[in-house]
């Protein structure tokens, strides 16, 4: 048994991702090693032969994600792991997977960029790359864990969401989370829910690979299962063949959009601490969320009250909840390990009366609780 169900262990964030993948029944891994995500590939190279599943190091990241798409079309649940520069290369394949509606999990352990940047140090620089990195309008689901335990849980959730929504899901731990070692108590095996692959239940001759459904999510057959279908990156009809007819093109694009926007309640995941009765709220995600909570503790000792708001699912952005919960505040502080990315979404969802203040850090170190406290004290 690879996953130590029910046990308490000291493990690393990246190790938790690898174990989460095994827990979610990963069947194929292709990747190209890159700091700070290499441990995920390394550990899966050890685990997957034990499971009798293929693991392959490809010649680069474009090939890796292409292999993933092929593997999933043949029915194998697939994952890859990379970091900023590799994630850039994967954008082409990511768009293809969105268009062809292929479920897969892409882990991007974020390091400092642009380009090679500070490869061993932390950042949250790929928030917008995760949203708009690939071209065209496309659906995106991205999750940001804040602890080793969450690396495990959110990897399982990423697999589940990708199968449920038939779309790629991006996991975005920052380097500090990926390389951190923490005490983790694993859940019991039967308490973890794994979403099965969405197989069709129609006769072979009736099968449409992109059959329109009320939920906008089509059942998906695998190559070799007897069902016949065509896959292309060109805009296609319900059988998967290229089309330029307006009703078919519109229907495809609407469906891609609605399969996310009509299921926001399933996707949204936020954590709130004292948000309701505070005038000042810190909006933070990933590792910075922990600093925000520590800052909240420090401020409590000074008899100052702040709230902390954290989106766990970053994309789709929790528009409605942010509007409901933060639009009546005096100040929203948005600390990020970049020069301001998700802050624009917060600004978009709050009125002009709310002061949205940034706090940036891009030197590869974490934002400390003291820095957050200092920023809060300036406005309080």
């Amino acid at each position, binding site marked *: 048994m690879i996953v130590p169900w029910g046990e*308490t*262990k*000291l493990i690393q964030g990246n190790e938790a991702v690898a174990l989460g993948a095994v827990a979610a029944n990963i069947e194929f891994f292709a990747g190209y090693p890159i*700091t700070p995500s290499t441990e995920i590939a390394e550990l899966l190279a050890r685990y997957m032969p034990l499971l009798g599943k293929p693991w392959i190091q490809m010649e680069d990241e474009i090939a890796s994600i292409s292999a993933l798409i092929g593997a999933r079309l043949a029915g194998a649940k697939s994952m890859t792991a990379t970091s900023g520069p590799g994630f850039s290369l994967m954008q082409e394949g990511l768009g293809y997977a969105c268009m062809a509606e292929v479920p897969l999990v892409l882990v991007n352990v974020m390091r400092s960029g642009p380009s090679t940047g500070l*490869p*061993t*140090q932390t950042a949250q620089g790929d928030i917008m790359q995760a949203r708009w990195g690939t071209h065209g309008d496309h659906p995106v689901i991205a999750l940001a864990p804040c602890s080793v335990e969450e690396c495990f849980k959110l990897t399982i959730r990423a697999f589940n969401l990708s199968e449920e929504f038939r779309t790629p899901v991006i996991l975005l731990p920052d380097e*500090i989370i990926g*390389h*951190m*070692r*923490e*005490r983790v108590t694993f859940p019991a095996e039967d308490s973890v829910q794994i979403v099965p692959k969405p197989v069709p239940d129609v006769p072979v001759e009736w099968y449409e690979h992109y059959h329109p459904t009320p939920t906008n999510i089509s059942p998906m057959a695998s190559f070799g299962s007897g069902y016949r279908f065509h896959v292309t990156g060109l805009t296609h009809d319900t059988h998967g063949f290229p089309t330029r007819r307006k009703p078919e093109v519109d229907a495809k694009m609407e469906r891609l959009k609605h399969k996310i926007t009509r299921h926001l309640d399933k996707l949204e995941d936020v954590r709130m601490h004292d948000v309701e009765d505070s005038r000042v709220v810190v909006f933070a995600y990933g*590792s910075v969320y*922990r*600093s925000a*909570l*520590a800052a909240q*503790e420090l401020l409590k000792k000074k008899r100052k009250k702040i709230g902390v708001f954290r989106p766990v699912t970053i994309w789709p952005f929790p528009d409605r909840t942010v509007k409901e919960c933060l639009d009546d505040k005096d100040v929203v502080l948005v600390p990020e390990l970049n020069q301001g990315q998700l802050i624009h979404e917060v600004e978009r969802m709050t009125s002009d009366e709310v002061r949205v203040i940034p706090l940036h850090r891009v030197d590869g170190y*974490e934002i*400390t*609780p*003291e820095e957050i406290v200092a920023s809060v004290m300036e406005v309080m």
Partner: protein
Amino acid sequence: MRKYCEVRLSGAGGQGLGLAGRVLSEAAIRADYNVCQTQSYGPEARGGSSRTDVILSRNEILFPNCRNLDILLALNQESANRFAWEVKEDGFLLLDSSFVNQIPEGHVYAFPLTDVSIELFKTPVVANIMALGMMAALGRLFDLETWVRVIRETVPERFVDLNLKAFEAGHKEGREVLHIEEGRVPVAFDRKRPVLKSQRRSNH
């Protein structure tokens, strides 16, 4: 028992700080602490500065890096200079005097870990575990059985004996500094000052 303790192991890349940090964290988990261990290192495989922060706490650990050190291990001059000021007033520094010539101020124990490692074991690679042994005695961290068990489980099998011997060598040195007989290191995590000034031994 102390509820919270911050330990930083620092030196150059390749000195085995990551392994030492893992052994320390595993020991802390066996003693039922919450642990958060982070690492910082450069893109180089060897050389460059490297550090491992370990926080032990009875409560949930929020911010993952050390800010007020209870214990600092510095295996080279650069890290001693850089981090000595972050040690709390009631904390202490353990220095490898094989590499550190200018001793910073404060509560310092200096011992030529690497030189002694070469002398005893014909290799410098176990200086990290020796340091851990010495730190365990000086800081009164956990009992010996816990350490032995953790080293057996964490270190690759063919190096276990070497590492156990190195740990014992370091632990013994720590005991001597404290004037404590073998096997009688009390696990008194909460003592404000680990050693009286008069008991301090310097190699300089």
